[in-house]
């Protein structure tokens, strides 16, 4: 079982490898919820990246220190603070979106400090989860989401369709999408919301006409700006995170 969840970081090897492949050489990378720093250490060593992490678990921070990965001990929003606008090329949020207390604020600040964000998350729309709820009538538990309803850290689960709608409503281009089955086999985007156990999506702000012609181009932001939210809105009001997008 080479695809078994890594017990120490709670992250998945294939997820790491795919994300690593999406990061260009020499990029400046911020990893939110970086765990023991494995991904960043690999990016630094193999791709000459400049890496920074944010991690709330102190044992994991110590592991990052052993790997030579600079890391901020704290929650994601606090860890994002202080970095200058556009400081990073890529911000990564691997398997943690559903645990964020305020996902729009986190994604908003990721795209403040970085040009692009790579976000991976478990798809709550997978057929097996739907079936469990439909037929079993209980909160679904799966390999990727093993918790009981009363103890789950996953407070903001979403489906592939939810995430796409979110991006559209916030004028974010999805410039790359990768879908995996629950057994971590890569699949096409066809019926991804039924078939995918996990999604890895790269997003960026849509600053002009969206030129990306990938599988979901028809639904991507399209370059329009609604609600008078101009590009690169960088409001100084931290309570205004939702408007940043």
């Amino acid at each position, binding site marked *: 079982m080479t695809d078994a969840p890594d017990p120490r970081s709670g992250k998945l090897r294939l997820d790491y490898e795919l994300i690593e492949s999406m990061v260009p050489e020499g990029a400046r990378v911020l990893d939110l919820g970086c765990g023991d720093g494995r991904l960043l250490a690999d990016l630094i060593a193999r791709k000459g990246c400049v890496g920074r992490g944010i991690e709330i678990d*102190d044992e994991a*921070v*110590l592991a990052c*220190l*052993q790997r030579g990965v*600079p890391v901020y001990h704290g929650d994601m929003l606090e860890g994002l603070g202080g970095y*200058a606008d556009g400081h990073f090329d890529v911000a990564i949020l691997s398997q943690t979106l559903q645990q964020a207390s305020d996902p729009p604020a986190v994604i908003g600040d990721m795209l403040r400090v970085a040009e692009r964000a790579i976000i991976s998350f478990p798809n709550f729309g997978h057929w097996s989860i739907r079936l469990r709820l439909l037929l079993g009538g209980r909160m679904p538990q799966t390999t990727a989401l093993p918790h009981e309803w009363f103890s789950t850290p996953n407070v903001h689960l979403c489906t592939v369709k939810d995430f796409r709608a979110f991006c559209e409503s916030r004028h974010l281009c999805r410039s790359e999408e990768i879908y995996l089955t629950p057994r971590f086999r890569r699949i096409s985007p066809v019926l991804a919301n039924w078939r995918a156990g996990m999604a890895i999506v790269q997003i960026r702000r849509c600053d002009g006409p969206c030129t990306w012609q990938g599988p979901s181009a028809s639904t991507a932001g399209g370059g329009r700006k609604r609600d008078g939210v101009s590009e690169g809105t960088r409001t100084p009001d931290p309570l205004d995170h939702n408007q940043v997008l």
Partner: protein
Amino acid sequence: MSIDDAVPISEGSRLGGPESVGLIVPQTVTFAEPPDEMPLDCGRRLGPITLAYETYGTLSPAADNAVLILHALSGNAHAAGWHAPDDRKPGWWDIVIGPGKAFDTRRYFVVCSNILGGCKGSTGPASVNPATGKPWGLDFPMVTMADMVRAQARLADHLGIGRWLSMAGGSMGGFQALEWTVRYPARVASAILMATSARLGAQAIAFDEVGRQAIMADPNFRGGAYYGGEPPRAGLAIARMIGHITYLSDGRMHEKFGRRLQDRDRLGYDFRTEFQVESYLRYQGDAFVRRFDANAYLYITKAMDYFDLAEGRGSLVEALEAARAAFLVLSITSDWLFPTAQSKEIVRALKANGLATTFLELDSPHGHDAFLLPNPALASAVAGFLENIQRQVRAGSAEPPDENPGKEGRP
């Protein structure tokens, strides 16, 4: 220094043990001989200046493994090892300095420097004023963190250390480390800041001032000219008692003393020492008087009060623009004298400048003093940080700061 007076000495750290740096001979260096006195921030010049220091381990031929230890208010240069076989305890940070310890003396050349203005072998108010042949007393010029660091730079020159691999300091030691990184950026590859701040806050200044007033209100103080007579013991003891309270935590004091009575079974309804915590504080005060000079206490607390890294440099972000070091910033959950928020303020400014920074809040009930006590997470953090910095420096791959990191990020 701590509530647990005797930090247990491990077998390996005893004299002759495999984790001890062994018998240490204190050293001094003297510079700034007239007419080349050292200019000070206050506008006066001072010389000659003597600094006391100790070294542990061996400087590499390339002089690239030197680590400077910077002590806090009441510290001294004796950070590790033993001065004599019958010493009761080793240097003040022996728990982390030695073979196989966090500051591993098999890998690093560790230097601990006393401070200008102190009373532990370095030039300070108790030293003889060459102009009068008498102790300086309050005629000693006011010194600042920057002055202390300028003097330490002369020590580095003396030791042939062009660039420190790292430097580490808690509390006031962190002030000096921060000052080093912006005053001599090319000479500091990395810095470890513990339980510190980029400026002394109003609350801490207030505690310092109460301590100073206690000293100066002592009839024996006599304007600081008490040398040769009775020193202001009562005032200095009170200053120490106040300071000591701020180094602890409410939880830890309650756990250690509670409301237990000292040498009695019931309340006496008088003003003699009744509670254990009173007895403990008096003991701390009395012990401090025997080893510290009241004038030095005045000067050093004043230097702490003056410290504000941003002073004269714009904002804190602008102040740290000069720095080129990698940073490890450690705060302590129960530290209310230098609370975590103050460490985070430093970290924000370091991040805004694109400097490689690790921040870790250590979970400890021991208050401000926790960095002086055994703490596996602290030791692990320091050891891992130093090993990686040394590897990067030796590989020539130490991460340069971003060329154009931008200014202050969003607040």
